[in-house]
């Protein structure tokens, strides 16, 4: 970066641009103390925006500003418009932005810019001007998925990165891209089964993005997902992400919670002395290291009883009471309100 910090005023190729100071006639309250380099570059950007110039040097200037402050959305917006105006190859731009994306992963603009570029690259594959190579849309998208995976390896829960990945899959909607997605989720969850972003991604891929070839047998898919989430619960029964995923499957597919009663029960009590040589693949037991009972399991079982209605609500009440007084006391008012609600439902019936 040191090579760039010659002030624009001293660079002959910028001599024709009139820099615009930020504040004129205003003595700003709560000003920021900019570095000279930043102030200089943004003065020239304001000058450029005023004249509306779109040229190669605008790309240099906006890149400079973005490196100093990746949240400068005006620089991004102006850069994007300039790229289109001068028909700059967008796949080159994409690669140019890789480093900035990894360095500034938490910035919205970094990911949104890529999304704009990808949109153009797909829509205009016939226009040679936007792309310097002849890669097909799905090749482009596939490269991009690899790039995203690389950034997620550094920040496994980055919100923008995950939502960008979901957007990319839905936008290109190509079976060859979808095919590898569950393996990717698996690798992320193997690394950290508590990564809720990865669980959400799994839900997105399996349930919320349409039904693809090879997945038409929904019963088989459901069995696969139940097995997957049960195994994860058995490994770490206090993992809220897997309980939420389980509830998500049931709600989405309108399956009663009672279908899971026999699986959940052992998780609602302290460790029972279950013979360890008995392996039940259908209902895997809690792991030896599990800390039981799990509040997530108790809540789940209470929901089963509440769903049953009638006198079962009294059983639910006992469970809510145990959460309120012992297993999840921070939420005691919520569990108390569930109790009241349940008991009122009984009164109304009788």
């Amino acid at each position, binding site marked *: 970066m040191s090579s760039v910090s010659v002030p624009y005023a001293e660079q002959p190729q910028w001599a024709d641009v009139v820099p615009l100071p930020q504040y004129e006639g205003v003595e700003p*309250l*709560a000003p*920021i103390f900019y570095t000279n380099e930043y102030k200089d570059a943004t003065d020239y950007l304001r000058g450029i925006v005023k004249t509306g110039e779109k040229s190669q040097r605008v790309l240099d200037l906006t890149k400079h500003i973005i490196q100093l*402050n990746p949240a400068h*959305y005006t620089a991004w917006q102006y850069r994007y418009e300039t790229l289109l105006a001068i028909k700059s190859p967008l796949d080159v731009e994409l690669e140019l932005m890789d480093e900035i994306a990894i360095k500034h992963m938490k910035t919205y603009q970094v990911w949104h810019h890529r999304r704009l570029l990808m949109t153009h690259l797909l829509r205009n594959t016939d226009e040679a001007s936007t792309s310097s190579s002849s890669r097909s849309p799905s090749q482009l998208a596939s490269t991009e998925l690899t790039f995203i995976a690389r950034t997620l390896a550094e920040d496994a*829960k980055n*919100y*923008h990165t995950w939502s960008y990945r979901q957007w990319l899959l839905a936008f290109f909607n190509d079976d060859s891209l979808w095919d590898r997605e569950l393996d990717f989720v698996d690798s992320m969850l193997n*690394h950290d089964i508590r990564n809720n*972003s990865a669980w959400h991604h799994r839900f997105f891929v399996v349930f919320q993005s349409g039904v693809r070839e090879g997945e038409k047998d929904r019963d088989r898919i459901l069995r696969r997902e139940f097995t997957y989430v049960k195994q994860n619960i058995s490994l770490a029964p206090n993992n809220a992400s897997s309980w939420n995923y389980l509830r998500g499957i049931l709600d989405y597919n309108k399956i009663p919670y009672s279908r899971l009663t026999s699986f959940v029960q052992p998780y609602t009590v302290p460790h029972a002395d279950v013979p360890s040589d008995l392996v039940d693949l259908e209902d895997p037991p809690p792991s030896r290291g599990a800390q039981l009972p799990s509040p997530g399991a108790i809540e789940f079982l209470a929901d089963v009883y509440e769903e049953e209605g009638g006198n079962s609500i009294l059983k639910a009440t006992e469970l809510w009471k145990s959460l309120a007084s012992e297993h999840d006391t921070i939420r005691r008012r919520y569990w108390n309100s569930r109790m009241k609600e349940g008991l009122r439902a009984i009164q109304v019936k009788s």
Partner: protein
Amino acid sequence: MAKLTPIDSYPTPTSKAQSETEEILLAHLPAPDNELPQLNKNSHLQFVARNLIQGFPARYVSQDASQPWLLFWTLQALSMLQVVLDPNNRQRAIDTLLSFQHPNGGFGGGPGQMPHLLPTYASVCALAIIGKPGEKGGWDGIDRQKMYDFFKSLKQPDGSFTVSRHGEVDVRGIYCLLCVATLLNIITPELVEGTPEFLASCQTYEGGFASASFPYFVPVSSEPSSDPKLLSSPRPPLGEAHGGYTFCAAASWILLKPFIARSSPKPSINARLLTRWLIQMQGVRSELGGFKGRTNKLVDGCYAWWVGGCFALLSELDGDNATNGDEQEELGTETDEKDDDAWTDDEDIELDDIWNPEALQEYILFAGQHPGGGLRDKPPKAADAYHTLYCLAGLSAAQHRMVPDRARRKVLEALWTDNSDQVDGHSHKWWMKEVYTHSMAWGEATRRKRNILGGEGNRVNATHPIFNLTATHTEGVMAHFYQQPAPPKRQ
């Protein structure tokens, strides 16, 4: 000693970060017989005033495109601490804010920056705090017609809005737009058509809301030129349930209620699932009762507001799915009276908290305060302008039980005078009165006040659960733009 979150003998990066954080947080819990926790108002005030008058150091360059936010966070933090700015600095603040307005409408992140929904919210709310009518007062310097045109230019076919030209779509932008359109009286049915459906599509299986949803599937990749189709269902959420987006979506939903009530079929959200998710976001004892923003993430002081602030909104979201609750809002006084009768029976239920506001107050007081002034995410982090406001706003949400006050609403309705307004050429605007009285009726419940942890000295101002402005500032700016008489003082 509170026990740590169980890790089931199965450590992962998440559980390691979690345990480390819990150890640090528990070290901030004073011995039980210690004196009461204090909100160090003076040192926070000094932190805020220093930022305002002396300015921000160079590391705040990352906020150069958020200059209106720096002002809003600072000025609203002063409001929370019940401090008023002197006239000279007030005028400087007004002039600074107006310099962010773009000639084509809306406000940018700084002078000469392009207009964007987020800085527009921050600018307008900051002006609500320190501005006034008349020349140089700031309020009449806002170009409402151009603002409306700017908003319309961002509208997408799925009912959402981009945050700026070529910008991203997300529910923060929608929240910012709806707040501004409501405060300035430029909201119209046309502007928000389809927006409730978009918001509903952002609710995830966990119950909270995501940043956005995906509106289209391109039919087949062999025909790249064919038009994408708008999906009615599913429009999958992009990203997982998140505290910030959830607040924005829930608050937006309430601002849209007068419009939702008249739409057919009515879009709906799952309030029960949302409630469960919000409840689950509160950290346990070893997290000092602070809030996290996503499942299996760490607690952070700012979610005291983004998530803790949502509980006040729930009463207005409940009933959207109830079989007979839908019509209540538009039937006027008759229904209201019936409600009032029911009120006494259900008093306990209506006024019982379902979350734990005392525990949240502990988090802010024990962990959220930086010893050198200002508030923060969590120890050992530094304080900053953003966390200072949202920790204080969250503390306020935990101290004050804000409710839609039916009696107040009747007062406002009785005072309503019909002034046909101009911005979009609509002559009869049926929604104006509803939007106005709905938004202005929020107040603190007079019965069963909450306990203020550490005593009265720790009290901060109440704040509007949707706009995050005090009642005085909300009423001032809305009465102005709706051309209504100043409402009577509350008791």
